[in-house]
């Protein structure tokens, strides 16, 4: 009572009265600091235009969030910094010379549809930046995978690796290659280590994903313990950008350390399987987005174990001496054991399934091939294999056929088609071009004895839907049918008049060219190796 007149107004609230200095903006700010090295490197390596891409992406992200909040009468949430992070992250995985609409559309999609529509910060179920990137990949596949810059050809190191071309691992590590804006592995690592050191992310997801990716690539990659190959796969395709910056997005990853280990393994596994088996060049985006879908479930799995529940008490009370002695530390941390077990079990299961199904798969492939032969050479009732032809095929198996005259193609097999009486009707040649827009294209080409093409059938083709995939449609495929020419030429303009000319599929000249080359190779092989030998 004595001091009432002088008493200031004291705040009253429930404890605790202390709060850590870390705020949501602080967390986001740390992520931004982590992205600085890669961004600065990109400005220097790709030129200032790439910074315009970054700036546009951030501006579009912030603008979208601001407008959405304004229109829906929500408090302005820009100050938490998450929109900046989303825009910036999206930019880091765009090509450096993206047309301006890419970052803008990507950010709008990321913020509006993947984030705001789900309730804003903390409510989205998939990483907004990656949702935006997935949207761009599907909608603007060509622009999104055009990694050329400064008129330097756009083959990324991973593409070179898959094609068997030369690439430099150190260049890849430092980022002196073509690729997305955040291409420098060392800059990503510096940023990632900063994130861990600053306690912004925990180590579980990056470590679990990198280790499991490595192990799964070892199992699935088919090149065994080829350290150059494994390192290149690890450094390429934005896997590490994903491991440190995207998969660790707190909102869309599990909260507990066991959950984060499981999540990391899922990301590593999906990335590896998409790399090896997938049809898309891009693996990181979809691996993380799919892993995000597991998060709510993973968070429910580890039931909390409060102090004392589910743990039987030690039966012997330790003596004072034991108390005083430092506890023995396990040689291998529990996390590593858990991680190894998960990976081994998953890998083992995969290998087992692979072994069990291998013969079945081979049988299926043989059937598919025979069906293709029958399709291209309908008059034949039986297909036989000739040892001398097999030997000729084997002759070129190592080097590919034609010394590059047809691009990188190989002749896989030649089957002799006969009728019921056993007389030869023609030949079916299985040929693969490695130069499809999205990997290998394998097809069978049927020939009559005089060299007339009877048809074309694809056994493996994974081109872009609606574009390269149009190769399987009769409009393109039947252009080769019933023609007897020396060699085919691709006519990109269309409106072909001669037998030699093949109209290109609109917007898919790479695919069309690969098919024409493959047919030419088969034709050449037929004329010079089969027909010549009689």
């Amino acid at each position, binding site marked *: 009572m004595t001091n009432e007149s002088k008493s200031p107004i004291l705040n009253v*609230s429930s404890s605790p009265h202390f709060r*850590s200095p870390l705020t949501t903006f602080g967390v986001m700010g740390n992520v931004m600091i982590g992205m600085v090295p890669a961004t600065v490197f990109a400005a220097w390596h790709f030129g200032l235009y790439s910074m315009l891409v970054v700036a546009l992406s951030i501006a579009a992200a912030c603008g979208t969030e601001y407008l959405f909040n304004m229109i829906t009468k929500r408090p302005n949430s820009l100050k938490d910094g998450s929109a900046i992070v989303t825009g910036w992250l999206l930019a880091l995985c765009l090509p450096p010379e993206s047309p301006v609409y890419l970052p803008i559309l990507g950010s709008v999609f990321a913020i509006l549809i993947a984030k705001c529509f789900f309730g804003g*910060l903390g409510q989205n179920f998939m990483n907004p930046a990656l949702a935006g990137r997935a949207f761009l990949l599907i909608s603007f596949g060509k622009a999104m995978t055009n990694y050329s810059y400064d008129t330097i050809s756009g083959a990324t190191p991973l593409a070179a690796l898959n094609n068997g071309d030369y690439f430099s691992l150190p260049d890849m590590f430092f980022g002196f290659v073509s690729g997305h804006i955040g291409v420098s592995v060392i800059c990503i690592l510096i940023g990632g280590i900063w994130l861990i050191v600053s306690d912004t992310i925990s180590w579980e997801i990056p470590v679990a994903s990198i280790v499991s990716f490595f192990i799964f690539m070892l199992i699935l990659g088919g090149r065994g313990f080829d350290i150059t190959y494994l390192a290149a796969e690890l450094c390429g395709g934005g896997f590490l950008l994903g491991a440190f910056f995207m998969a660790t997005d707190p909102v869309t990853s599990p909260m507990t350390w066991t959950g984060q280990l499981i999540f990391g393994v899922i990301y590593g596994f999906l990335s590896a399987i998409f790399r090896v088996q997938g049809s898309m060049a891009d693996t990181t985006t979809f691996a993380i987005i799919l892993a995000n879908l597991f998060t709510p479930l993973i968070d429910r799995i580890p039931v909390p174990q409060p*102090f*004392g529940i589910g743990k039987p008490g030690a039966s012997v009370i330790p003596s004072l001496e034991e108390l005083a002695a430092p506890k023995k530390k396990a040689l291998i941390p529990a996390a590593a054991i858990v991680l190894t077990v998960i990976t081994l079990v998953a890998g083992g299961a995969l290998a087992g399934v692979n072994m069990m199904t291998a013969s079945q798969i081979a049988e299926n492939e043989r059937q598919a091939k025979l069906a293709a032969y029958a399709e291209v050479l309908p008059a034949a009732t039986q297909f036989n294999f000739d040892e001398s032809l097999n030997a000729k095929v084997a002759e070129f198996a190592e080097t590919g056929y034609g010394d590059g005259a047809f691009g990188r193609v190989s002749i896989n097999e030649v089957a002799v088609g006969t009728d019921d009486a056993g007389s030869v009707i023609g030949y079916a040649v299985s040929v693969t071009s490695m130069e499809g827009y999205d990997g290998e294209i394998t097809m069978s080409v049927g020939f009559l004895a005089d060299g007339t093409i009877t048809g074309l059938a694809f056994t493996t083709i994974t081109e872009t839907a609606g574009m390269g995939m149009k190769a399987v449609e009769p409009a393109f495929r039947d252009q080769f049918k019933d023609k007897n020419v020396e060699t085919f030429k691709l006519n990109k303009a269309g409106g072909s008049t001669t037998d030699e000319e093949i109209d290109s599929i609109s917007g898919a000249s790479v695919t069309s060219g690969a098919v024409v080359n493959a047919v030419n190779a088969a034709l050449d092989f037929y004329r010079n190796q089969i027909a010549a030998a009689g």
Partner: protein
Amino acid sequence: MGKYSFRGGVHPRGYKELSAQKPFEVFLPKGDLVFPLSQHLGKPAVPVVKKNDLVKVGQLIAKADGFISSNIHSSVSGKVKIIEPRLNNAGILGESIVIENDGEYTPAEGVGEFSDYTTMTGKEIIDKVKEAGIVGLGGAGFPTYVKLMPKNPEEIRWIVANGAECEPGITCDDRLMVEHPDWVVNGLKVVLQIFPTARAVIAIEENKPDAINAIEKEISGDDRFSVLVLKVKYPQGGERNLVHAVSGQYMESGALPASLGVIVDNTATLAAIYKAVCLNTPLYERGLTVTGSGAANPGNYIVKFGTLASEILTFEDDIRLGTKKVVLGGPMMGVAIPNLDIPLEKRNNALTVLLEDDVETAQKQMTNCIRCGKCIRVCPLGLYPQMMAEAVERNNLQRFIDVHGLDCIQCGTCNYACPAKRPLTQLFKQAKPAAMALNRLNQAKKEGGK
């Protein structure tokens, strides 16, 4: 020596250096003293004095009502002015005895006389502890004599003196161990008299080297005693963590440490036991730390119960301009008080004066939960605060119980760590009573079903 730690915990900014080297000063109040009848866990005490009665230092003024309750003694000599409701610790009006201080401090008969505990039986010691009105001085205020009467006395193996003092800023237990290690150790010896086969452990955080040295010196040569050094971390002084540290056993929710053969008492409580049993001095004063960014004169004081906070802290001299908050206790678990006309009592170990109010700032910084999982990583009990908060926000009390929300000790660690500044502990405090009711209902249903 190995240092005990646990998974989780945080490191709030410490400022123990403000008062750690300041010796205790005895603070003599001048104004009236206010003795709330409820200074402990359990039923309020019943006054045994009436208006205008003359009382002396150490005289019983209110008697325990029932098993879980505690006696209250006068800390001054003087006259009972009135018995009426006054603002108390909890921020509400509670029945209190107001005594006019004559400034003489005349002790009551027998107070301060020496008794030899070694000749006493366990029952005699427990009765003296009960008479002296000793409760847990760490903050809970649980009557200590009840703890000394476990169902299984022969199974008690460990007596733990909790000197962790992990709350930021508070140094009164530290000073007690530095200045009077004999009080603490003798208090332990008195308790060991009740449990002759038990051993004693003094648990101290490693940021109190002076206290560790003083205690180690005091116990040297007696192999019943040892010091357990704890890593500096909040909340290191949690009872379940300490029980685990000494017994290697995990204490279940709702269990008493005694069920695992452990009795945990605060160091200040043990000193009070020593004084009550050996010096026939009931509990009427205690050590209290004045600290915080807004405290002009941080230090440690021996404070008589009933002294108003406004006597120790005056706005003219002791509180810096711009102070936003005064907390009774430490910043992590203490209670913010609306004004200083609140009497200090058994459970108060500190007055924390804060220039900045983090809670006020946090309200401005609050965002949606970003699911970072920091709360899960820091929870000393291994709970999932994020899921508990989600359950409360959705009014799903069953889910709150399912994720073990009732195990929460409301230490505020998750709340401290949360970058999104979600009001986690507040939600749990709010939900706990209703959740407990639901839990009882569930159990009743289950039993009814049988």
